[in-house]
């Protein structure tokens, strides 16, 4: 089956093409076809995962796309444990979300298009996971960016959604620019894009000295830039909460489970680069922990259910990034670390429980038609399936034994071993995570309804929406068990980098993290269920902190001032320059051309046409005079002929022969006759004469 694994990504593409060209008019058929394709992909992914268990080395296949001297670009697939796990995660969440969407998007005028976009996204995401070189991953990287744009802006008639999709696209583009430059550096200094070749040459090159460590550090940090954009890490995290304007299934699939995890996947995939550079890894780890703390503090005070989950996602992604960074740092310094395994393991678990949280939140929103958790309350009784699924996922993300989140979060805490600052902050985030998730749970599902009208309206969602929730809830509980520290061939010895890591159960750590998680939940219970600690009083007491948190640390405002305003000012200046100078120049040329044309027109009308018409006019006037000779009288003609003959004769005599008396006499006789004739014509005849002649 592994040989056919390229089909895993091509099937959703097929669905996309079929829907766009043939099925788009039949909504149910479109949805069914698209779900069918992703289910086939899912089955194939699971089979590929099991086949990967038994294989020692990664499966790689491809063909050469561009063949240059010293440089080969290929299109191919690479199946190793990391890919196999990602394939299963993406197809599982993808299938759940597509089935769920049948219910959630019911009645939407663009129902078929939604499924087409989802299929296109799944194609891009699976292609990204399957790619065997940096060139290909970049193409799919941009494709997921595009589909993310399309899906955030799916309800594009809503201005906030249209703005959000632009923001998401542009913000991630900043990171992608760094990624692209990183690719250039890899291409130029390392000479290939194929993962395995790159990693091998990096290891060799650094050891042999022909590759400067600075180059590796630069390339690694630049590649990480791409991950910062895509995984919404500080300082490019601002787009993800806004991306919640998209339909909730989209938030679940793209902005919680898969696409945002692509950055984590990229870091994990390029771990050789980071493991070769302690500096780059430290940058990664620091960015990860900053993001994690920052997002967690913001999530504490938000009111919008989807935004809380979005900040939670950012925070958890920061966790994974931090674990991977610390792993790279430790490995570069020659220490062992569970970071890589912890990061990827948490990536998988997080995909399941965060996908579930979003889908459940969508189900709630579907029921009460509001995003504000303080308009909900007591919904557990009305929405049993959704509610319990949500609670399970919340327990999981809080890290409660024995749910899946517990195992992976534990490993992340374990990976901070030897870095006390990181460890304290990680535990702090764990505490805040438990607190804000359970704040959300208590406010939404317990207590008294705050808005009676909405509460009365609320109802459980249809089965097509709840079954995916139940399925994901099971995964949220069980998925983590593949990484139990007691398993001899668990997750840690399957997806690893370098040499396999063998985790051991650390009871102290487990105890600490459980205490932290439970205390977070208890605090939330006291504040939002029991009411023994008033949230308002707490907010008033820590007014500055509360304000900072509630306003998201003013990131949007800061970016607005230091980035957007200058850029807009520059844009306006350019616009003015364009209008005044460039357009002025162009218009000036046009004005001069028109003027010149006017001059030429005047010349043409009065000089050229004047000459032509003048010639005609002269001929006309000449003819007007000349035609007077045309009297119609035969005798006048005869007289004229004679007169001209005489004239010519006279001239000839004068000029050629010099004259002779006789000729002269004859001429004069003829002239006399002519004159007499003329005279006689001019003198009116008497009536008698006329009579006698007639």
């Amino acid at each position, binding site marked *: 089956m592994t040989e056919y694994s390229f089909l895993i990504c091509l099937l959703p593409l097929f669905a996309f093409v079929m829907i766009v060209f043939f099925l788009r008019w039949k909504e149910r058929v479109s949805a069914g076809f698209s779900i069918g394709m992703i289910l086939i992909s899912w089955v194939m992914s699971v089979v590929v995962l099991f086949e990967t268990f038994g294989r020692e080395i990664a499966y790689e296949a491809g063909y050469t796309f561009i063949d240059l001297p010293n440089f080969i670009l290929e299109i191919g697939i690479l199946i190793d444990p990391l890919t196999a796990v990602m394939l299963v995660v993406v197809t599982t969440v993808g299938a759940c979300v597509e089935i769920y969407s049948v219910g959630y998007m019911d009645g939407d005028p663009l129902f078929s298009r939604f499924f087409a976009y989802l299929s296109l996204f799944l194609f891009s995401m699976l292609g990204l996971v399957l790619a065997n070189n940096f060139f290909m991953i970049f193409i799919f990287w941009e494709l997921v960016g595009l589909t993310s744009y399309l899906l955030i802006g799916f309800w594009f008639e809503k201005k906030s959604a249209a703005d959000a999709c632009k923001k998401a696209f542009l913000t991630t583009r900043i990171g992608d620019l760094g990624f692209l430059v990183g690719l250039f550096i890899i291409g130029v200094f390392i000479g290939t894009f194929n993962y395995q070749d790159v990693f091998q040459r990096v290891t060799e090159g650094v050891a042999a000295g022909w590759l400067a460590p600075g180059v590796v550090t630069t390339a690694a940090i630049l590649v990480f830039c791409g991950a910062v954009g895509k995984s919404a890490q500080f300082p490019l995290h601002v787009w993800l909460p806004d991306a919640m304007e998209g339909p909730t299934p989209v938030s679940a699939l793209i902005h919680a489970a898969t696409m945002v995890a692509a950055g984590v996947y990229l870091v994990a995939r390029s771990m050789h680069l980071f493991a070769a550079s302690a500096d780059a890894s430290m940058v990664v780890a620091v960015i990860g922990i900053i993001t994690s703390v920052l997002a967690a503090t913001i999530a504490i005070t938000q009111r919008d259910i989807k935004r809380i989950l979005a900040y939670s996602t950012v925070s958890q992604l920061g966790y994974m990034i931090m674990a991977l960074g610390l792993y790279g740092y430790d490995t570069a310094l020659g220490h062992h670390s569970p970071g890589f395994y912890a990061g990827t393991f948490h990536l998988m678990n997080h995909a399941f429980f965060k996908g579930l949280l979003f889908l459940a939140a969508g189900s709630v929103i579907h029921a009460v038609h509001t995003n504000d958790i303080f308009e909900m309350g007591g919904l557990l009784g009305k929405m049993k399936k959704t509610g319990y699924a949500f609670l399970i996922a919340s327990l999981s993300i809080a890290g409660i034994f024995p749910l899946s989140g517990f195992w992976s979060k534990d490993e992340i805490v374990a990976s901070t071993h030897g870095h006390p600052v990181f460890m304290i902050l990680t535990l702090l985030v764990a505490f805040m995570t438990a607190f804000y998730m359970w704040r959300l749970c208590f406010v939404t599902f317990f207590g008294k309804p705050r808005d009676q009208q909405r509460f009365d309206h609320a109802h459980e969602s249809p089965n097509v929406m709840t079954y995916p929730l139940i399925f994901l809830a099971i995964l949220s509980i069980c998925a983590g068990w593949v990484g139990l520290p007691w398993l001899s061939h668990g997750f840690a010895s399957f997806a690893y980098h370098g040499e396999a890591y063998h985790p051991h159960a650390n009871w102290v750590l487990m105890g600490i993290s459980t205490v932290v998680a439970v205390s977070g939940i208890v605090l939330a219970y006291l504040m939002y269920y029991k009411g023994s600690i008033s949230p308002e009083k707490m907010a008033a007491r820590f007014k500055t902190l509360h304000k900072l948190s509630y306003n998201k640390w003013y990131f949007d405002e800061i970016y607005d001032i230091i980035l957007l305003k200058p850029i807009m000012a520059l844009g306006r200046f350019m616009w003015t320059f364009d209008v005044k100078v460039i357009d002025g120049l162009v218009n000036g040329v046009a004005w001069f051309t028109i003027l010149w044309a006017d001059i030429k027109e005047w010349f043409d009308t009065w000089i050229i046409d004047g000459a032509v018409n003048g010639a005609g006019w002269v001929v006309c006037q000449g003819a007007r005079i000349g035609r007077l000779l045309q009297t*119609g*009288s035969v*005798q006048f003609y*005869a007289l004229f002929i*004679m007169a001209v003959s005489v004239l010519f004769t006279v001239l000839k005599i004068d000029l050629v022969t010099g004259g002779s008396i006789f000729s002269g006499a*004859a001429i004069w006789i003829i002239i*006399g006759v002519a004159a007499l*004739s003329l005279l006689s014509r001019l003198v009116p005849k008497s009536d008698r004469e006329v009579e006698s*002649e*007639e």
Partner: protein
Amino acid sequence: MLPYLALAAVLFSAGLFGVLTRRNTLGILMSLELMFNAANINFVTFNKFISPDNMIGQMFAIFVVVVAAAEAVVGMAIVLLIYRNWQGVNVDNMRIMKW
């Protein structure tokens, strides 16, 4: 020779005068005959006084008489048609070729 030529000139002038001044088409035709005959006299005179050895001048005179006869026939036919169309033979009436 001079008297002959003078006679021819007088005759020609008379014919010319008639052609130019007569209103009557028939009169014009007759004046035309006068001009022919003035030419004939010239032919004969020059033949007699300049090259008496051959008869070219006389031949030409005879020739002109013959052609004049034919011409007179055509002319008379035209006059007849004119008369039919204008109910008269006054040339002053025939100005349809005027501008």
